């Protein structure tokens, strides 16, 4: 295999090592402040208000296949689902998760189940709260509209892989007067969400949600690792550009 793959391997290795190191460091010195992202601040309040107002929280996980790169954003969505399910477990209307892909639907049910088991509230779990609303992008969006319109949803969290059809979901929220917090790995979806969502999560911000929602030590660690690797990439680009400019590398 070519040498460049060794570069990539070493990049992955460095990433992994840093992840472990930061996990160990954070275990010792937990506090490390994260920049404010309004969306997460609002989410905290939305959960509380939803519980108080007897409304429902809806987490849209998109339709990214789990065995794919796009699936990563859906898996981040599952982490948010887990946190929100626990946070809103005292609500009389448990959070509902909608997904547009088979595996993601199964995972959303598993996540809800384990979340409730963790707080010994298995009786809150009902498979219907982790539902698949459609199996193609648009049928997913179409199937999600009734959830938003009929289920007294006060806040919809969109975290996963979407396309431009996500505008239908945000518009439906707009119509029923519910809040939307949204992030996606897809650029077109991000562009649409930037306009149509109250609290857009831009690009990488979605992947930091675990850390912002205190989903655990590893999430904190991975955010720090991302911060470090970010500068590694930047340095790589600048250095590589310079070397390329002066013709050191072809």
């Amino acid at each position, binding site marked *: 295999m070519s040498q460049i793959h060794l570069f990539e391997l070493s990049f992955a290795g460095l990433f992994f090592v840093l992840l472990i190191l930061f996990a160990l460091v954070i275990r010792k010195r*937990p506090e490390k402040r*994260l920049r*404010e*992202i*309004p969306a*997460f*601040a*609002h*989410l*905290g*309040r939305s*959960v*509380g*208000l939803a519980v*108080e*107002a*007897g409304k*429902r929280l809806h987490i849209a996980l998109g339709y990214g*296949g789990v*065995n*794919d*790169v*796009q699936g990563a954003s859906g898996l981040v969505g599952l982490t948010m689902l887990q*946190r929100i399910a*626990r*946070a809103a*477990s*005292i609500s*009389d*209307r448990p959070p509902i998760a909608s997904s547009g892909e088979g595996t993601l639907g199964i995972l959303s049910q598993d996540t809800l189940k384990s*979340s409730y088991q*963790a*707080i*010994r*509230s298995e*009786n*809150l779990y*009902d498979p219907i709260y982790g539902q698949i609303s459609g*199996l*193609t*992008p*648009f049928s997913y969006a179409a199937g999600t509209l009734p959830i938003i319109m*009929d*289920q*007294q949803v006060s806040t919809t969290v969109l975290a996963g*892989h979407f*396309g*431009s*059809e996500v505008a239908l979901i945000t518009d439906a929220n*707009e119509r029923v*007067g519910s809040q939307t917090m949204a992030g996606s*790995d*897809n*650029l*077109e979806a991000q562009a649409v969400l930037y306009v149509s969502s109250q609290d857009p999560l831009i690009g990488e911000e979605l992947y930091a949600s675990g850390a*912002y*929602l*205190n989903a*655990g*030590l590893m999430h904190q660690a991975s955010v720090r690792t991302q911060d470090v690797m970010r500068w590694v990439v930047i340095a790589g680009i600048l250095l590589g550009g310079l070397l390329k400019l002066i013709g050191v590398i072809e």
Partner: protein
Amino acid sequence: MAEIRCPMCSRLNPDELEICQFCQARLKPLIAKPNEPTPDWLNQTEDDENLDDSTGVNQPVAPDWLRSLRSREISHDDLSEDQSMGDPPDWLRAGVDAPDLLSAQRRESNDSDWLADFRSRQSDEEPTETEPVQQEIEEEKLAPLDVPDTTDAEIPDWLSNARFDNDTVNEPAVPELSQPDTDAEPEWLARLRSVHPTEGVGQVPEPSADKDEIPDWLKADGQNLGSAAVDQSFESAPEEEVPTWTSYFEKEGDSADLVTDLNELKSTEDELLIPEGDLPDWLKDGSHQPGPNAEPGEPEIRKDSEQLPDDSPPWYATAPGRPFKPTDQLSQWLRLEASGPDSSEPIPAEEIPDWLKADKEDLVTQSLTPKLEELSIESEPVSIDEGLSSSQFEKIPETQLTDAELHYDEDKADLDDDFALLEKKLFPDGELEQALVTTPEGDDLQAVDDPLWLVELRQKMGDSVEDQGLLKVSPFSEDIEHELPAEAMAGQAIPDWLIDVHAQEAIEHITGDSEPLEISQSFERDSENGLVQADLPTWLEAMRPVEAVAAAAADIMDEHDQSIEKAGPLVGLKGVLPAEPDVTLAHKPDSFGLKLQVSDMQRTRADMLQELVQNEALAKPLPRKPAISSQRILQVVIAVTLILAILSTLIIDTPIAKVPGFPIETGAVSELINNLSSSDRVLVALDFQPAFSGEMEAIGATVLDHLMLRGAQIAFISTNPSGPLQAERLVNIVNQRYDHSYAGEQITNLGYISGGRAGILAFASTPRQLAPLTFDSENNPWDSGSLRGVSKASDFALTMVITENADTARMWIEQFQPELESKPLIMVLSAQAAPIIRPYYAGSPQQVQGIVSGMSGAAAYENLLGRVGIARSQWGAFSLGVLAACILILLGGIINAFPIIGARMQKTNPGGDDQL
């Protein structure tokens, strides 16, 4: 079909529904499992692994939780903060857990009685719950009152109830006084209490949503049936029934309802027989050694008291001895019932158990604890009764709990036999049913001298009510109804010390050397009487007229000395029924000066709790939205303008648009296709959603037309399930529109490969395995068809990806292009994907050799081919539509921005991020 009223919208729903069909509110109560720990978000920073260790049962409910919600200052980790504020306000949950019940309660006369809601909820809930939950509920109710040691759950819930009762004056206090009992009471009791005369039993909600037909009390597990059902029916049942029946009498002499409830009463017999396994110890003892010889039980009692938290009040420590009594007495009472009126023989030796005498120390402590305190706080003559009754009340249930907890597992083995024995003893030949339904028997009553008021009552009710038995039970109820029983008084009069008293003090009181005079006297009196005051069964206590409480303690004692019951259930007991004069003076009890000493803080907390619970119980009207908002108008205006702009050009076909320019990357595409020969095989990855067919078919059709013009062999593949159908459709469109007749071997539809990126990677390396058959699964194109000899990606002369999705395009570039070995890859893209993919064309090494994007690209390409295809025919309408959209977005933006700019102008210092 019975219906459930929704707590949120108050509309009726079929009772099998879990969620209101109108407002989607949960209809059926969610019941917390025992030992529910602090929800994870209390200690959010913990890893999930640690979650199970976190037992948050003792977390006090923190009203600040709500405050934090209301306060608008949110920090970035607000979520965790909100959550870590403390336990979920379970009482809030309680409000919604049994919504239908709440609404049922609301329909009752005492709308303002939020406590009743509480009680009925509990009594419905408890049967499916076990001790810890009771404990939890105690805490839930106590926490808002900011009781110091709530977390130790050392304050029994009857106490908190008593406190609440003080706020609700006209509340018959018996139920909350027997709160510990209701904690474990079977649901039929709860129903008796909470069911509205006009409601069917069917309306009783079923806490556990999953199990359907079986009523809750049957679903209740052994623990409940063992420790709850049995104890309840023996101890608190009579006491519980009373208020319900009286309420029936006073509301309406509706015999139908009475019969209904009687049936329920009957049904409880089964319940009483059901218990398996987890019988509280005292019952086991009872079953081993009938009645009196409770000495063996004595060590048990000690053990219990040892195992209790040190700071548990003395009565708690000494309690275990108590529960035996009522059981025993009831069984005896039943026997008396069976043996008829002339069973007025002296009580058999066993009926006055030795352990009652043996228990003196306990009794001292029982009467002592309260009394000392009363002496210290308010010296009212009633204090003894308070002490006795109040102490009496929590003993029984608490002991059951403790015992059940202690002995559930270890004794499970023997319990069945024990219980079988017990059953035999307690209800020979289903006497219980008899007893319960027609208690006491008609002729029994004849035997007992009917007091005047009883005669009156019979005249009043007798004819209207069919069921004599029930009627004949009514004397008690009548009694209770008109006069708060001693317990009620005591219960209402629970002084603060019972809440604020620190356990250590209490224990000091037990072991205290110096006993005040009154106590020793009372103890002596008790011992003289032979039957200890504190040993009166609770249901018997319930029958004591209020004057007994109202009058001075000394008088009461004298009274008791006077009368010994000759017959009936009370046979042999002294002074348990008031003399007639007392009874005939029936009137509502004056509210005595036995006031609950509530601090302002406690009062405000209690008020807040009341307000919150009431709000929770109220159906929340959905915020009324204006029929049509200005934004909706804006949306409609935008829609109409857009549609008109487009239609105008479509209908009146005016050439208002010029053919767009010709981007260099589009030229590259036509160049590459021109270089193809008829034998070349082209792989077309058709990966767009049907939604984009408007745009993608316009672009794809023209490029496909070019390919067909060159006579290339085209193979379609897709990573999108509907892709293969899209391919069929597109080929048809192109064939029809441009008069091609591409079919058979010229077109191979390889169908759909799943697995996204992985699928593409696998297809790139082993296309034959990934798509072994054609889309219709009819033949294998790789051996015989147009793809003969193709075994890898680079065997295709050209690969064209038609997609609207930049990610899909990138997947093909990243996974497939490296396998092409310098064979060209061209992209036919939607306008939305072009900006992201263009760098792959512009970049070096060039990963994409040509791009046709958007309607403009399609129109330009058609123009290049000299065709008037879909793109060019729609170009005018499209252009005008875009122009209209630009204007609308601009105007709409300005309209929406003006108010804000205005506001900014007024502000002296505009705020941070929004600052321009």
